[in-house]
């Protein structure tokens, strides 16, 4: 349980920084702000005020959440290991009886805890806004969305730590984190569309046609896309592309559970790869 000592120390350390407070304030402002903004949007339709319901807010939150959480997760985690190796505090950490695996696992847990605290506080304050201003509050849906958002926060923090463990240079760790974000969150659409172009001579399936399964699957691989797919899958309302294309039998690999599994894989794979690099390195 040596990683627990590392995690606790890392949480103490990060928790004493202004980062935790800044981050918490950011998520409170963001989540509660969005919950409030959504009430204005709902009322501006001109029709006799539609019912303000919390599930609508959750769908409304998906795209800003998938922008804010990845960025903040990578920012607070990407120097977790490389920064320590570069400054020399890793020498202190690893002089004590911690394996390098304990160090990486402890950092993943400690930093994820910091990130999750900030997100959780934001979600709770937003829930208060919903309870106060909305006509209905679907507690189950809100809790489910919250769990997925926390998983996204933890997995992006884990990815940041994993990338950080892969290099001894904190500048390079920043580049790795930025590259990861650009590839998986900004440019990923080009990958599926590029392959589709090579196969079919056009960039996307014609309107109305059902895209091939691999195309749908590929689009769900990035962490935030897996998060969105899971949210669409678990929340009531059959929203999302997969539900459109497969009204009945959704293939297993495009199911909501596959989306959750994808998220869990991200949570494990990148830190594991980072750890392997770290284990083999001379410090």
């Amino acid at each position, binding site marked *: 349980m040596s990683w627990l*000592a590392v995690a606790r120390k890392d949480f*103490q350390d990060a928790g004493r920084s202004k980062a935790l407070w800044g981050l918490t304030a950011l998520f409170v402002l963001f989540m509660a702000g969005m919950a409030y903004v959504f009430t204005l949007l709902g009322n501006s339709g001109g029709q006799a005020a539609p019912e303000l319901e919390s599930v609508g807010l959750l769908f409304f939150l998906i795209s800003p959440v998938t922008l804010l959480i990845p960025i903040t997760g990578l920012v607070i985690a990407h120097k977790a290991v490389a920064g320590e190796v570069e400054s*020399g505090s890793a*020498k*202190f950490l690893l*002089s004590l009886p911690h394996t390098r695996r304990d160090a990486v696992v402890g950092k993943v847990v400690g930093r994820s805890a910091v990130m999750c605290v900030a997100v959780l506080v934001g979600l709770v304050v937003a829930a208060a806004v919903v309870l106060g201003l909305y006509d209905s509050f679907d507690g189950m849906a809100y809790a489910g969305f919250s769990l997925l958002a926390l998983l996204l926060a933890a997995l992006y923090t884990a990815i940041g730590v994993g990338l950080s463990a892969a290099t001894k240079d904190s500048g390079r760790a920043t580049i790795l984190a930025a590259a990861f974000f650009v590839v998986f969150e900004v440019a990923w659409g080009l990958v599926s569309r590029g392959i589709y172009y090579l196969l079919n001579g056009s960039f996307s399936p014609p309107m109305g046609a059902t895209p091939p399964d691999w195309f749908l699957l590929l689009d769900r691989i990035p962490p935030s896309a897996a998060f969105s797919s899971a949210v669409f899958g678990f929340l009531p309302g059959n929203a999302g592309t997969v539900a459109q294309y497969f009204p009945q039998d959704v293939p297993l690999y495009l199911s909501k559970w596959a989306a959750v599994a994808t998220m869990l894989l991200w949570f494990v794979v990148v830190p594991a790869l980072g750890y392997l690099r770290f284990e083999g390195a001379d*410090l």
Partner: protein
Amino acid sequence: MPAIELHGVTKRYGDVTALHDLDLTVEDGEIYGFLGPNGAGKSTTIDILLDFVRPTSGTASVLGMDAQTDSQAIRRRIGVLPEGFHVYERLTARQHLNFAIESKGASDDPEALLERVGIPDAVDRKAGGFSKGMQQRLALAISLVGEPDLLILDEPSTGLDPNGAREMRAIITEEADRGATVFFSSHILEQVEAVCDRVGILKSGELVAEDSIEALRSAADTGTTLTVTLDAVTDAAADAARDVPGVSEVSVDGDRLVVRTDSAAKTDVLDAVESTGADVRDFSTEQASLDDVFAAYTEEVMA
């Protein structure tokens, strides 16, 4: 069982060989001073003992365990003061020590440890505000957690004033009296002289000497330099000095003879010079300093 044992350890970084076929044994219970100029490979050796760095070839064992495969078990039983140590700036001295105590499953009192290293008042201050000397004292306190069987101290006097360095040596002696083995590196010989049972001198990745300070001093052949001022220096006087047993070198500098000799032969040299009819106006002797001993090994031996 030796506390530290290195066999044929070589470490290469690309084209640079940091350690070359190093054999080193530190016996249980001794205080071993690991000397050498900066860049000689001292830190690389310590990094290998801690498994921060893996040797290109050779084996290293600590307390009878393999430095690579049993590293965690080793680190449970040793205390380390690393070089280039960097504190967690936002954590207090107490939090640093509690982390070490928890990590080692020890039961030390943080305040007692800080008292011992001379900074008891800093216990609840954040380490980011510490001076270099205070950080070094905190690091020493951390190394003492859990009564380690072996202390590995890399340049422990870094950042300490002379008084701090003296306190450091006192703690090293106390730990050895408790039964701990102490292995510490330094690039300054004076610091190891007072406390070490044995010293090893590392140069360019090789151990060039290993013995007690006294034995090294005599073996380095840096003896005594006797300077004799004469009314007139003659070849006969120089030859007479050269013939005295114990004299290793005689040179002429104006009206002075500069004689390298072991200290016992001093009066013999003066007698021999006077017997040639020369008039000794003045003479002075100079004992080889430890720096000369160190320099003799690190500069000449390898040449």
